[in-house]
């Protein structure tokens, strides 16, 4: 046996020393990991743990052709922490000022202002922990961010915005300067590439990334996605240590929403509105274009309008521009409303296309009272024998009133509500209102004669449009819709919207008969010759409503009175009448001062717009003429109904 290389005494000493050292280390480890664990973990968590949110990308809003109406992008915002600046970087300040297009004196003022006194009511919110590089989710709109005030009531300025929306090239050039304390924050931004196009439908998201109006607000649940987060550790320079990632919930990007709005159609409509605005200088105007077969909106535009990219630059007195007046404002629909009385009378077989009406008397007896009949705008050669087609074509007020009176309050009210008046049509955006239709028990005897001609009732532009679509759609009231599909982040369809029938209002036969009668409006004899489209049968109805306006009374009070100098001109129709493919409503409010002869008639102001729109939509929507059967039937109709 070998003697070994050490004496047993030394070996024992060495072994004991080693065991003591190991024992010491083990004891210390036990102390740290067991006894002191909680307090140490608390310190570590406080100093090293980092919570990082992962912001989900908001989904896009697409038009019917897949074009972007709203999208999300990230913007780089350049800022400076004046308290992190180094003196040796000062010679490069003028270069930075030149790059960002800021006067050197202004830049120097910002860079040298390191404190500020605490205002009595802080104008900007404090944001703690806004450090360089950690601004993925920082909101860059606050131009100044500061630390909490010290004992003397002064705040350290930690961030001052220098420039928004820094392009890539400029970003690289600024980084090359290497000025410590000058850094970028990334800020989520909503972009509307088409600017004001369909802005009332699309809506907008504010700077705090909150959806405010339109589809942005209605479909926010789908669009916004779900933010994620990760918890890990950071080093002494506040940099994330990805190897110590503890937990992570990834962000789920928002779904995209595809609308039925066709950018091309919408553009045509907005051009027409621009033309109307330039020609007539109205107070407001609205145009709606839909496919009457499924109720989907192809275009909806209002004048005045706004650009959602710059919504915050609108002065308070211009905020009304953001209102979707087609669904949020009401007006008296006027003669267009006569389609309700005519359709109801035909459906109830109270009148037929061969019926004759005596429109010569200016008073009738109704519910035991003598009721004055509304005046006629058209002089019939034989007012004692006016046919139903003439009632429609020449917009006979008394003819429509007779039909309503013959129906009676209850039945007429049922049809009025059936056509969608006095209730919301569940249109998803714009703050739809129900309009004004009093309960039938509150009607005076005169009311039925006025409601029949579109007075004593108020509706939205959309309600009147949908009522006309009932005629175009074989008597069925459809829910007006604007969302076609919801798609996930991978582009797969999650939900598809289909047509929704709200009510069967009249039979298909009645609807077709009314459509044929309405074809007489856009003819040489009708009230809207200007709406006629060559080669196509147009069915529609004009409306010219005297406006109810505030008038100061001798006693100083304000009363609403009908003012004959102010009108709302409208034309609501569809074509081809035999096989409707598109329904168009044009409503122009208060265009009298620029209208021919000083009165904004529907046939003079709105009907030409209908024609221009229709002519432009024919190639876009590939609308095919469907003339012969309906035209022949209408000709036969008129011939047969002549006394």
């Amino acid at each position: 046996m070998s003697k070994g290389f050490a004496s047993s005494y030394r070996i024992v000493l060495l072994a004991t020393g080693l065991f003591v050292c190991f024992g010491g280390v083990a004891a210390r480890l036990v102390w740290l990991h067991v006894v002191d664990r909680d307090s140490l973990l608390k310190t570590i968590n406080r100093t090293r743990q980092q919570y990082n949110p992962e912001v989900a990308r908001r989904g896009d809003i697409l038009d019917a052709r897949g074009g972007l109406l709203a999208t999300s992008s990230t913007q780089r915002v350049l800022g400076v922490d004046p308290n992190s600046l180094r003196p040796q970087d000062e010679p490069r300040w003028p270069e930075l000022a030149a790059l960002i297009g800021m006067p050197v004196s202004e830049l120097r003022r910002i860079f040298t202002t390191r404190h500020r006194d605490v205002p009595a009511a802080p104008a900007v919110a404090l944001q703690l922990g806004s450090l360089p590089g950690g601004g993925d989710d920082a909101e860059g709109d606050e131009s100044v961010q500061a630390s909490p005030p010290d004992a003397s009531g002064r705040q350290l300025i930690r961030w001052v915005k220098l420039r928004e929306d820094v392009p890539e090239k400029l970003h690289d050039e600024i980084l090359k300067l290497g000025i410590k304390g000058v850094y970028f924050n990334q800020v989520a931004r909503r972009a509307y590439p088409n600017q004001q196009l369909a802005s009332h439908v699309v809506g907008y998201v504010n700077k705090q990334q909150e959806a405010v109006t339109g589809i942005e607000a209605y479909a926010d649940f789908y669009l916004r996605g779900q933010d994620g987060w990760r918890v890990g550790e950071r080093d002494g320079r506040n940099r994330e240590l990805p190897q110590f990632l503890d937990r992570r919930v990834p962000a789920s990007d928002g779904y995209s929403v595809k609308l039925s709005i066709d950018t091309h159609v919408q553009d045509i409509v907005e051009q027409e509105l621009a033309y109307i605005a330039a020609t007539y200088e109205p107070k407001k105007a609205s145009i709606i274009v839909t496919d009457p077969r499924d109720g989907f909106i192809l275009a909806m535009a209002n004048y005045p309008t706004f650009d959602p990219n710059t919504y915050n630059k609108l002065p308070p007195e211009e905020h009304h521009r953001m209102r979707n007046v087609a669904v949020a404002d009401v007006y008296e629909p006027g003669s267009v409303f006569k389609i309700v009385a005519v359709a109801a009378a035909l459906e109830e077989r109270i009148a037929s296309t061969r019926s004759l009406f005596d429109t010569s008397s200016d008073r009738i007896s109704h519910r035991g009272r003598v009721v004055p009949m509304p005046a006629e705008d058209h002089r019939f050669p034989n007012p004692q024998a006016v046919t139903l087609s003439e009632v429609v074509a020449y917009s006979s007020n008394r003819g429509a009133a007779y039909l309503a009176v013959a129906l009676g309050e209850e039945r007429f009210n049922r049809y009025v509500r059936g056509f969608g008046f006095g209730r919301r049509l569940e249109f998803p955006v714009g703050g739809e209102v129900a309009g004004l239709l009093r309960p039938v028990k509150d009607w005076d005897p005169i009311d039925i004669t006025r409601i029949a001609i579109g007075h004593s009732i108020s509706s939205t532009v959309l309600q009147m449009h949908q009522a006309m679509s009932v005629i175009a759609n074989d008597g069925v009231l459809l829910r007006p819709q604007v969302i076609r599909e919801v798609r996930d982040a991978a582009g797969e369809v999650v939900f598809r919207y289909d047509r929704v029938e709200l009510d069967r209002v009249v039979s298909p036969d009645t609807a077709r008969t009314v459509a044929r009668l309405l074809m007489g409006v856009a003819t040489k004899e009708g009230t809207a010759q200007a709406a006629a489209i060559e080669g196509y049968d147009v069915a529609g109805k004009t409306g010219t409503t005297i406006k109810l306006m505030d008038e100061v009374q001798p006693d100083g009070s304000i009363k609403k009175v009908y003012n004959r100098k102010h009108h709302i001109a409208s034309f609501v129709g569809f074509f081809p009448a035999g096989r409707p493919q598109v329904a168009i409503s044009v409503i122009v409010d208060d265009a009298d001062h620029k209208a021919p002869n000083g009165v904004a008639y529907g046939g003079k102001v709105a009907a030409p717009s209908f024609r221009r729109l229709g002519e432009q939509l024919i190639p876009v929507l590939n609308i095919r003429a469907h003339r012969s059967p309906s035209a022949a039937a209408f000709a036969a109709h008129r011939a047969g109904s002549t006394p």
Partner: protein
Amino acid sequence: MRKNSRAFVNQLLVCLLVTMAFGGSIGLGIVWMRHQISVTAKANRALLAEINDVNRRSDALEAQIRGEQRPALLRELNQRFQLGLVPMNEVPVVHVTENVTQRMVERANRWSFPPAETREAQPVTFRLAHR
């Protein structure tokens, strides 16, 4: 007895040294592994940041392209550069309502046998072969 205890201590020492070497190499391996994990995690994070940056640029570019294609701007450019482009006013598809076969035959015949009014009197010529 003394020899045995010395031998045991020697063996113990050797075992201890082997254990320390083994433990040390395990420790070094763990350190190396953790370092590699850290490097990989940082690389992944950098890659993720790069992907996010590319996505960000792509989104911004897409929005810019769509913005440049908006109808109002295209109209303005058309006017500024006097391109004279006009909106399509007719469907570039002709809907044939009559008998298609008949229509095609007529068109073919029109080429082979033009109508008498459009036909010009042509002298009949014969080419003679040279022998």
